[in-house]
């Protein structure tokens, strides 16, 4: 028991006793002895509920019919130690213990009920594929392979988490992905000392370049088409068992404004949507700050008629603009958070409370000015246009910082904030790739597929940003 290399014995009862001990005397461990052949008895062990009983029966019957066919359906090689048996049982295998010979074989009979392939809720599209990843690792790999039926797609399994033994698959494309980056990914994953990996964010936090940063240095997505697009750009995907969110890396800042639907529409529409997202990202970041700076310091820059209406609206409000904007922004964040947590049945109540009380009544009571309500609402809506990556949340956090700076130094404060933000972004790297690329280091031809979208027929170069081996997608016939 102390010895991890404890070998299986040749005694049936002894094996059962030790195995039971290994499995913490758990009640759902089933061990049935059955005589398969004359003179030879096996013990069939499995965890009840975790396995598919029909499949196990089928396997056993097949085995009884023809013993030589066993290698055809056995998944793993023979196991000789209790540790292997216990690990196999815990991950949903059935183990046949040949007691007299002191070894066992494991059969993959995992039969757990998982969600079926569904439309991804966080990345819904109007046009484009509707299937999203699920919690099953095998199924997720299959979804990728289904759309990307190429032998150059490479899947490498890794296991992380000392206790949770979470399986994950590293996806790359031979001949495109840079082997140095792949090597780096392997190294970082192998070095994870965590005891449990309960989702892709656990991996993300362990392997990110900068653990202290607010910005996501890896992307996560629920959509197979997005993963394939990333793989073809020379990026690497990590599918973690038990979560529908697949990690993509390296990730650069401007990719946060892309959604896969851009490629489903004509490139004019795709480009326009992308520009709108960029614009609304900026509005989301800066509008409250701009309003506060203007109202506090720079009245003279507002056209007179507009200034009059702003002033008369603000007149009954006893708070300075910065307090007002913080109140509204915090109220908005609370409503948004409540909206996620809330049961669907009471959803209407919150929207009524939000619209009437926080909007109209607050204005009529003279707590906030109507202009501030417009600003807060517009800001909130703007951040909803971005795909739900962490950048979305980062922008909402930085809103507050920017507003604070604006209340101290006016427009200068905003600009100082922007410059420091840019400096910080420029200092980040995701797996060696500059986070602000391709804007800085500047590369015009690559920006044409980041800020806007290139037509598929003109998209014949992979981004060199991810240091791909083979740069050409296709040669256009001219």
């Amino acid at each position, binding site marked *: 028991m102390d010895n991890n290399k404890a070998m299986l014995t040749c005694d049936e009862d002894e094996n059962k006793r030790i195995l039971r001990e290994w499995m913490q005397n758990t009640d759902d461990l089933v061990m049935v002895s059955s005589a398969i052949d004359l003179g030879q008895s096996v013990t069939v062990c499995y965890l009840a509920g975790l396995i598919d009983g029909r499949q196990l029966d089928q396997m056993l019957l097949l085995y009884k019919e023809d013993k030589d066919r066993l290698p055809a359906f056995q998944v793993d090689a023979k196991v000789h130690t209790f540790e292997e048996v216990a690990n196999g049982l815990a991950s949903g295998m059935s183990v046949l213990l040949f007691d007299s010979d002191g070894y066992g074989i494991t059969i993959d009979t995992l039969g757990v009920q998982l969600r079926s392939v569904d439309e991804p809720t966080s990345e819904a599209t109007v046009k484009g594929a509707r299937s999203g990843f699920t919690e099953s690792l095998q199924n997720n790999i299959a979804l990728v392979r289904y759309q990307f039926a190429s032998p150059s797609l490479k899947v490498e399994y890794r296991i992380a988490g000392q206790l949770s033994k979470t399986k994950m698959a590293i996806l790359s494309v031979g001949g495109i992905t840079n082997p140095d980056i792949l090597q780096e990914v392997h190294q970082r994953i192998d070095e994870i000392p965590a005891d449990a990996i309960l989702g892709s964010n656990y991996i993300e936090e362990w392997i990110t370049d900068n653990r202290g940063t607010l910005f996501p240095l890896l992307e996560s997505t629920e959509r197979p088409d997005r993963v394939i697009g990333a793989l073809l750009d020379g990026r690497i995907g990590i599918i973690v068992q038990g979560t529908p969110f697949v990690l993509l890396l390296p990730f650069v800042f401007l990719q946060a404004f892309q959604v896969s639907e851009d490629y489903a529409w004509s490139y004019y529409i795709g480009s326009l949507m992308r520009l709108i997202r960029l614009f609304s990202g900026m509005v989301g970041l800066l509008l409250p700050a701009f309003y506060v700076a203007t109202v506090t310091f720079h009245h003279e820059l507002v056209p007179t008629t507009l200034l009059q209406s702003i002033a008369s609206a603000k007149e009954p409000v006893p708070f300075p603009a910065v307090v007002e904007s913080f109140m509204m922004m915090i109220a908005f964040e609370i409503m948004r958070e409540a909206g996620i947590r809330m049961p669907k049945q009471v959803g209407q109540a919150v929207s009524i409370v939000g619209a009437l009380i926080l909007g109209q009544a607050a204005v009529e009571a003279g707590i906030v000015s109507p202009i501030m309500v417009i600003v807060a609402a517009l800001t909130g809506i703007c951040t909803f246009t971005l795909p739900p990556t962490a950048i979305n949340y980062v922008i909402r956090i930085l809103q507050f910082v920017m507003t604070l700076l604006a209340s101290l130094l*006016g427009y200068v404060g905003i600009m*100082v904030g922007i*410059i420091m933000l*840019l*400096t910080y972004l420029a200092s980040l790297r995701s797996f060696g790739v500059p986070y602000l690329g391709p804007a*800085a280091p*500047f590369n015009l031809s690559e920006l044409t597929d980041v800020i806007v979208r290139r037509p598929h027929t003109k998209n014949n170069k992979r981004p060199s940003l991810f240091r791909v081996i083979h740069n050409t997608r296709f040669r256009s016939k001219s």
Partner: protein
Amino acid sequence: MDRRITISNFQLMALIVISTIGTSSLYAPATFAHYAERNSWYLVVVGGIMGLLNLLVLLKLNKFYPDKNILAICTHLLGPWFGGGLAFLFVFYFLDLSSWILREFSQFFIIALNPIIPQMWYLIAGAIMCAYAVYHGLEVVARVSEIVFIVTVTTFLAIYVMLINQYHPEYLLPILEEGLIKPLKGLMLSMSWFGDLMFISMIIQYVRKTKSTTAYAMAGVGITFLLLLMSVLSCTMLFGGEATATFTYPSISLIQNIRLFRNIERFDAALVVVWVMSSFTKITAYFWSAFRGLSDLLKLKQPKRWIIPMAAAFVICSRYKVWGLVELTSFYDHQSWYFVLFQLFIPTMLLFIASIKENMKKSR
């Protein structure tokens, strides 16, 4: 510094353009007009040529010693004592210049934007912003400067284009009626503005050199020249030579003349954008140079610790350097030889000595 710092040609160009154009183009038209009235464009042209010359001197010096910055060249050529002293003078120049620009940075906001906020706040904000960038190192500064370059140049172009229907080209006439020599009184000043690119003598050793490095650097001076020319020309064509000379920041008045759809006006915010961004790049470039020079000369073990004291010193120096804009501009006006000395004369002298030394080596 484990990894070798490299910056690209484009980044070099961006640094040259912004640090030269951003701050000067705001009040250059007024000062030039003061000397040459409607012929101030001529000063820009001559200044641009001198700027190109200045650039060539620095590039040539770099060709002799590709992995040395100007401080190392000083000590290499003139020995540890005299050369070291000169190198210290250079570091002092960088330090001094950083605080000058920091003061300019804050002075602009006091005068043009908002006199309510105390100057100290602007100084502190500027110093923090630049110290943060210096802390992250040259590569980061260079990358940010690329974005700054694009934003700044587009904004300037947009300003000049939006004014196009208000220009009076006849204000430029008669051209050079007083001959070619008389307007050159302000040449020293013009040179000192173009000479702001001298900080590249500290960074050029990190540029990933290709065939087109020289071309990019010269393009940088070219873009600076064009933008400065445009700003001078548009001021003259809008206000006339004499009126331009009376403004403190003619570019602000330029922007205030923009009017779209009858009542959308006052694009001053655009100027704040340009000013903060370009001052940032300029201060950071000099701050970084001073920081680098200081840590090289004193062989500091943990140079990053010195950034905060340096930034604090900049704030204090800038605050008490001069009492106001009048003194600031008059210093720039009358003591511009001080800048040109370090920008052009000493590097030329070094180049001279270097070429003699190299020739002697060859002949031996």
